[in-house]
């Protein structure tokens, strides 16, 4: 009975469950960077780099799936390091500006290159990602980030986010830790992109553009960044909402963005720490 129900549920909502997992992973990629007080608008592009790299490696070069995922994530991290190195030595919103521009560069490159398949996208990526892969990676990421938070690195991130000058005076190498937070975020985004590519048969440049980058930020704002579970909650609610509202006339279609906007507005006005603040116990490390 339960088994029959579950298999039926999966037949209908399997892809939704998968997308929730991927979006949660993408939301966490931005959460790491935000936890050090840095705003990256490039995580969608890093997911794109991971997706295209892994897709091309498996399709053209017959590279085993885990290796191409690792390569996609690794390349994202390396590129993030090269961008972050000059930008993160300075304070302020320069990372947001640089990554915003970088995201467009990646999108336009993907549209114009031959190896990426141009505007039609990369077609025929073998389907190797399962729901187990997605949630296995998500669980590992959550565990890693939860432990990271209580480690020396996590406390440094938190100190920089609160007051960079005070953090410096306490002996924290702020440029190093900001770069680390950014590179770690790009790495997780790269993994998410790579497993997404092998879930979907086709990837197109538009999926990794500016609106996707902002969507990740919205997951974090709606869910809240006080806890690792906040961004996951945000990704879950905003990914599932259109499905839940499918029966309501117009809601799944033209009204969807409007409903997202209303939720975002209400959270910003009334729950500055996000929806996760309903679950108090998860919020603090100590």
């Amino acid at each position, binding site marked *: 009975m339960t088994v029959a129900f579950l298999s039926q549920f999966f037949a209908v909502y399997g892809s939704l469950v998968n997308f929730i997992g991927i979006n949660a992973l993408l939301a966490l990629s931005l959460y790491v960077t935000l936890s050090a007080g840095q705003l990256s608008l490039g995580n969608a592009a890093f997911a794109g780099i991971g997706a295209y790299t892994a897709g091309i490696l498996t399709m053209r070069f017959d590279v085993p799936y885990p290796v191409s995922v690792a390569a996609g994530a690794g390349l994202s991290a390396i590129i993030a390091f090269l961008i972050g190195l000059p930008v993160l030595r300075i304070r302020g919103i320069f990372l947001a500006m640089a990554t915003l521009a970088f995201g467009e560069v990646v999108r336009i490159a993907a549209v114009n290159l031959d190896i990426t398949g141009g505007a039609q996208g990369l077609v025929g990526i073998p389907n190797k990602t399962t729901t187990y892969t997605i949630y296995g990676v998500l669980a590992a990421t959550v565990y890693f980030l939860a432990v990271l938070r209580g480690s*020396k690195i996590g*406390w440094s991130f*938190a100190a920089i986010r609160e007051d960079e000058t005070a953090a410096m*005076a306490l002996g924290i190498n702020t440029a190093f830790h900001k770069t680390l937070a950014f590179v770690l975020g790009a790495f997780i985004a790269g993994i998410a992109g790579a497993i997404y590519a092998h879930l979907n048969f086709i990837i197109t440049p538009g999926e990794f553009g500016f609106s996707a980058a902002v969507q990740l930020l919205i997951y974090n704002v709606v869910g809240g960044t006080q806890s690792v579970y906040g961004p996951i909650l945000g990704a879950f609610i905003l990914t599932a909402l259109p499905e839940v509202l499918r029966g309501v006339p117009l809601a799944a279609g033209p009204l969807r963005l409007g409903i997202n906007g209303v939720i975002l507005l209400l959270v910003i006005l009334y729950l500055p720490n996000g929806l996760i603040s309903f679950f108090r116990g998860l919020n603090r490390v100590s």
Partner: protein
Amino acid sequence: MFLEFEKISRSFGGVRALWEVSFVVEAATIHGIIGPNGSGKTTLINVVSGLTGADSGRLLLEGREVHRLPPYRIAALGIARTFQNIRLFSNMTCLENVIAGQHLTAGRALIPRLLRLPSASVEERRCREDALSCLSSVGIENRAGALAKSLSYGERRRLEIARAMALKPRLLLLDEPIAGMRQREIEEMESLFRSLAEAGVTILLIEHNMPFMMRLCSRITVLHFGQTVTTGSPEDVCAHPEVIEAYLGVESC
């Protein structure tokens, strides 16, 4: 000589914040800096902690040049500070503020934690005890779980001192540590600073409360328009005609 200022100068645009400041701070003493507003006291502390670079001159810590090091390297030499305008991590609790201040003194390595090694939790417990003892040395251990932003002004100053102490400093730079404190709190801080100096910590202290400085400091440097007027014992400084003219006024100590 523990800390030596050698003709340190620093200008902001056309303003000479510090001009060839030279004096020496002896180890394990409490050394005061006084002077009118805008005389360069905070700039001097900023130069020592590396937040502001010196245009010229040298700063020597136990004979080693330190004025070109970035702030985090200076902190690693055992130099901790507080800020005149209080820079706490306001969304953290008091305990968390001190934990964040343990960056250089606690391990909290990632790998043993990921592997859930028993050594990691033993270390964490020890670090938390250390953090609590920092809080109790400034008398706010009962506020450990309170958010920093919910503290009173005096408590905030004390928490900032506790956070600086988490670094286990050899040199503590305090920028107006008792501003806004009540008399009883001031007395508590006085005995805390004394016991720190007895334990071997050198304290470089800016404060406008002259009776406090007279009681506490073994030597005082007077700044005026970025220049050193004099350095000497509190009694000598008080009797110095230029100091009376520039800062103290007649019959103030």
